[in-house]
């Protein structure tokens, strides 16, 4: 019961703020709603027994990425509405319809397909450590070491790329 209340409240907030993100006119407000959205997603992670991910979500998304967005929104000041010009070849309505169609399809798959089959419950993977953080760390540094290193390389490349792109003169 408590779980249901928590889930539905969080889901309502997540979806509500997500809608606000894409509908608000003022971009700064949009960014703020995005932060709120991420905070509620983090709360959902706590509910799902993933406190480490929740902390990372707040730290990286809310504290890092979205601050970047805010910076860019403030730096990119617009004299005219960003949406003032519309390409005559743009067919926004078709996109909307297709998106809704995909949503219905996904919902159908989720409700009919997966829901009808009980998920395969494998035995919990035996890890030599307990605790959520320790387990994630263990996996990252054993089985997924190479992906982890690649991810860090990706971040390094992205960092250099961003500097090269944004700096006026090198």
């Amino acid at each position, binding site marked *: 019961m408590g779980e249901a209340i928590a889930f539905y409240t969080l889901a309502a907030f997540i979806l509500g703020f997500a809608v606000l993100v894409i509908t608000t006119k*003022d971009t700064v407000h949009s960014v703020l709603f995005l932060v709120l959205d991420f905070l509620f997603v983090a709360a959902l992670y706590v509910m799902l027994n993933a406190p480490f991910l929740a902390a990372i979500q707040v730290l990286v998304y809310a504290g890092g990425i979205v601050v970047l967005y805010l910076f860019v929104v*403030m*730096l*990119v*000041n*617009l*004299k*005219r*509405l960003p949406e003032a010009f519309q390409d005559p070849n743009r067919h926004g309505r078709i996109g909307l319809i297709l998106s809704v169609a995909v949503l219905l399809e996904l919902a159908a798959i989720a409700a009919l397909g997966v829901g009808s089959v009980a998920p395969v419950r494998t035995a919990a993977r035996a890890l030599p450590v307990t605790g959520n953080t320790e387990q994630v760390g263990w996996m990252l540094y054993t089985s997924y070491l190479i992906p982890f290193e690649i991810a860090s390389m990706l971040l390094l490349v992205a960092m250099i790329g961003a500097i090269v792109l944004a700096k006026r003169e090198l």
Partner: protein
Amino acid sequence: MEAPTVRGEMFDTNELVINMGPQHPSTHGVLRVVLRLDGEKVVDTDVIIGYLHRGIEKLSENRNWTQIILLTDRMDYVAAATNNVGYCETVEKLMSLEVPRRARYVRTLLCELQRIASHCLWLGTHAMDIGAMTVFLYAFRERELILDLFEEFCGARLTYNSMRIGGLPMDVPSGWDKKVLEFCKIMDSKLDEYEELLTHNRIWIERTKNVGVLTAAEAIDLGLSGPPLRGSGVPRDVRKDEPYAAYDEMEFDVPIGTAGDTYDRYLVRIEEFRQSLRIIRQATEGLPEGPIVGKVPRLIKPPAGETYHAIESPKGELGYFIVSDGKSTNPYRFRVRPPSFCNLQALRRMVRGHLVADVVALIGSLDVVLGEVDR
């Protein structure tokens, strides 16, 4: 989109214009500095003055010669006695009056006390601008002692009106010289205290070294005088070059800087504290007996003619140019060469290429008093 916002102006171009002052905590009065910034870097500045203009020069043409002393108080209001001395000496020069030796000694003494008071104020506000708030209160604590001395001498603490043409309005109170010497002793130790907080402080050095460098040639071109000029290594000091009052009888050194940056100007002024104390000691210990006023006519009416006389105020060369028509009891033309005004010209040259934070440091390092700039 919404009405144009400040944000709009700010990021539209690469240049951002901000208006520092006239109401700003660190422009030392009502100075207005319009900064053109590229990010945090200053591209150009406009220094706008005139917010404290009271027309002292014009006003003086309608006052008699004695009343003007009171107006000069209001120019550099942190060194009022120096202004008085400068004015009185100019009129004396115009009238070829002889001033008794005791009066000249007291004038020297007052000028140097005033220099310390003014430098205390400079040190406090300069350090405050750079963020060292404690030095501010320490410096004001010592300035307070000087104000007490002045209060005992002439009854006022800020605008002294402490000179008369031809001498002094009153003799120094008895026992005053002992208090002055006592103050010198206190000041000696307090100076070390200031230096301990600043001179070797890493942050202070980083903030002031190589900030606002002026070469000797540039400083002369800009018409600087006083510590900003000496900080650039030009050994010009009116007290030494054209001695007035009793400076010809005093022994002191003129400190000069080498690099011409803010740090050197700071060191020059700190050393001036010490030299001033030296002069004060000599003047107090050697204070001669005798009259305090020379032979002054009842009605002061200088002969027709013009004269320029400069003294070394704490800020630099303070000159008075006075024209008398010989007929009326007020000057025909009265003009002041205010050191702060001339020194302020350097600001534009100095801030270019520096950061916003340096602007306040540089205003502080020039030590301008807006009362004197605008008059």
